[in-house]
């Protein structure tokens, strides 16, 4: 074995170190300006994700009232963490629609039974196609959509308690 190959593990470790140290030093800036802001929602028509909530399509957003579009999945751990805050938003009067990513109806139902169900409509995006078109790269993510179906804000990652007033404000601005 030549000498440089022996340094390979060290190099990989250095890479690991840089990534983690970077993550540790810069508390992630969670307010990213999305390219989707100001654009209308992509056209989609998703089937029902659970029996007791209606399906979701682009047409549903053209009602005049702004709402939140939450991208989630029953297999996603941060989604559990954000569930109570979504509930708080719903309690404060926000209308929340959900898109369940790569999920099964029984899993979504179990997830909602466990963590609460703040959604008025839930669409099932089994191939992540809507997720890709809407410019969301992971779960959970939350979009503020105005009454004409235009995206006005994109929140990446889980909603924390401190984000609740900010999102309510964004909803108000979208009116």
């Amino acid at each position, binding site marked *: *074995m030549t000498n440089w190959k022996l340094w390979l593990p*060290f190099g990989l470790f*250095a890479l690991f*170190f840089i990534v983690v140290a970077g993550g540790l030093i810069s508390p992630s800036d969670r307010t990213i300006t999305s390219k989707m802001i100001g654009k209308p929602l992509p056209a989609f028509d998703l089937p029902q994700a659970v029996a007791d909530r209606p399906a979701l399509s682009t047409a549903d957003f053209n009602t005049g009232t702004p709402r939140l579009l939450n991208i989630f999945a029953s297999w996603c*751990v941060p989604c559990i963490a954000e569930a109570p805050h979504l509930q708080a938003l719903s309690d404060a009067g926000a209308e929340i629609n959900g898109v369940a990513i790569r999920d099964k109806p029984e899993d979504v139902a179990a997830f909602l039974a466990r963590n609460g169900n703040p959604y008025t409509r839930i669409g099932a995006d089994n191939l992540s196609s809507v997720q890709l078109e809407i410019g969301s790269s*992971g779960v959970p993510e939350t979009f503020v959509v105005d009454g004409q179906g235009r995206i006005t804000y994109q929140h*990446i990652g889980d909603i924390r308690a401190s984000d609740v007033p900010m999102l309510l404000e964004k909803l108000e601005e979208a009116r």
Partner: protein
Amino acid sequence: MIAEAGLACLWLAAALSLLQLLAGGFSLAGRGEQLASIIRPVAIMQGILVAIAFVMLIWLFLRTDLSVKLVAMNSHSAKPFLYKFAGTWGNHEGSMLLWVTIMGLSGSCIALLEKRLRSDTMIATLAAQAFVSIGFYAFLLFSSNPFERLPSPVPEGQGLNPLLQDPGLAFHPPTLYIGYVGLSVAFSFAVGALITRNVGPVFARAMRPWVLGAWIFLTLGITAGSYWAYYELGWGGWWFWDPVENASLMPWLAATALLHSVSVLATRGALRTWTIMLAVVAFSMSMVGTFLVRSGILTSVHAFAVDPERGSFILALLAIYIGGALALFAIRAATIREGTRFSFFSREGALVLNNVLLTAILGIVLIGTLYPLLTEAMGTKVSVGPPYFNPVGAAFALPMLVVMAAGPLLRWRGDSGRKLINMMALPVLAAAVTLLVVVLFGGRIGILPLLGLILATGLAIASIIPLWGRNLLRTPLNIWGMVIAHLGIAVALFGMASESAFNQEVLVASQPGESHEVGPYTLTFNAIEPVAGPNWTALEANITARVTGSDSSDTLNPQSRNFSSPPTQTSEAALLTRWNGQLYVVLGEENADGRWQLRLWWKPFVTFIWYGGLLIGLGGLLALIGRTVRDIRRRAHDMQDEENEQDQQAGEAAA
């Protein structure tokens, strides 16, 4: 006074570990022969002192001394005795003290017991062990002092996270820690061997019991942790691919690979560089695990000790130890003599293949765990879950299971393919029968659970073939160990596959008097009653479970518990365990119309997952006993030879 005495012991132990390092360093540099002689006693004393410090902390918790900050933050006078005791390590500072205590005690054990290793390698090993300890002592003393006093005692403590108030907690963390720290010993041996250019079978035999011991504890720790999450979190799942779970799995994967490669090194003198590398990787995975848990850098449902400052400290330690060891490896590995060559079609060949596949799985888990961090650095936040881990992990785990079935049937050095085919006939037949049975009677199940069931039966049969034709009483314990551990993997795999293939879940809104069916059971919801415990009150459902059509019945009492301090609501699942599965019942909330949410699961053979884990641990224990006894005999034999030789020489001289 107890706290001050504990702190004093901790400082003294830290000072001794510095002395241990310096003495080792100077004597290796050839300055001071006498320094070498103090290193063993110093290591023993250091272990004793740190153990005393830990006992002091336990004492403070048992007395609920509320003038000590850690006790006030994490304990409560009304807490049951067991949890006051276990609460000692149910927090960051206490668990770090437990970590250095185990480390100190294992240093003592090496100093007391290890007699085979060349003395310079031994000194280097103890010095390396001291070097690692110093970092953790510094961490404790400068950044997380467990004995810190409050300016004035508080009237009452803040309690312990109710999720942690469970008998499982009393054993799960210490077990895992012993495993993690055991790997630090393997790491020290590897560094010692690299420094003194002494990588060979003797070194491998000295390191093996530590790797085996650490691996047994990791296995049991993961098994216990998985069961704890299964019944305490009330989600009905037993593995979530959560970063903290992965943090315990990764060292286990590395230790499993190390365990097998160290055997090749001990038996055949091959895989020298690779074994050293794995020893470093195994300990780095322990540290990476600790780092991920403590720094809160990844979102996890398990994160209860999150603090970025502590994260930076652990990361700094990680950089020094792992970076240092890998640099040492890069400089020295070229000087390690090439081991014996061997043919691919042999026991060694199978072990190498197993090592490669295990390492690949390790890499997959590591990438999946760190991926959210990587993408976050690029500005997006994602969560990686089972849709990634299950299929990608299985792509490597399934071939590994095949190698695992075949490997033990091969002889060392080289073997014939025809013989292997003959021996594999029975396992393959068993797997085919399973396939037939599942296809005919199993209904529609996923491809992964199906493959899991098939491989589990094949592997179960294959794993006991090495006992074929042997006198079972005279079979060495380490063979028994291998057979039982491999059988354990098959049993656990069967449980996992069966649970995911045949699991039945029913969600109902029920009111007293109603009955529901799940699996072979009919459950009758009788009543909701309030009950009270030592530091909680709960609403308890009374449910009668009856195998549909039979008379005998059992009562299940799932609870929705409210803890007073800190105020938290938890859900206590009720479990009914039968040989062929478990009934799992969770009480949810009350709906507006007075109906109660009930979640009912029937999980066929789910308990096999943990029985398998226990079998794996038992196999490890048997191997450890077998190896140790054999080593002691061999040593006694060698000494006999030496004495004979001396006698002979003396005789010749006299003549």
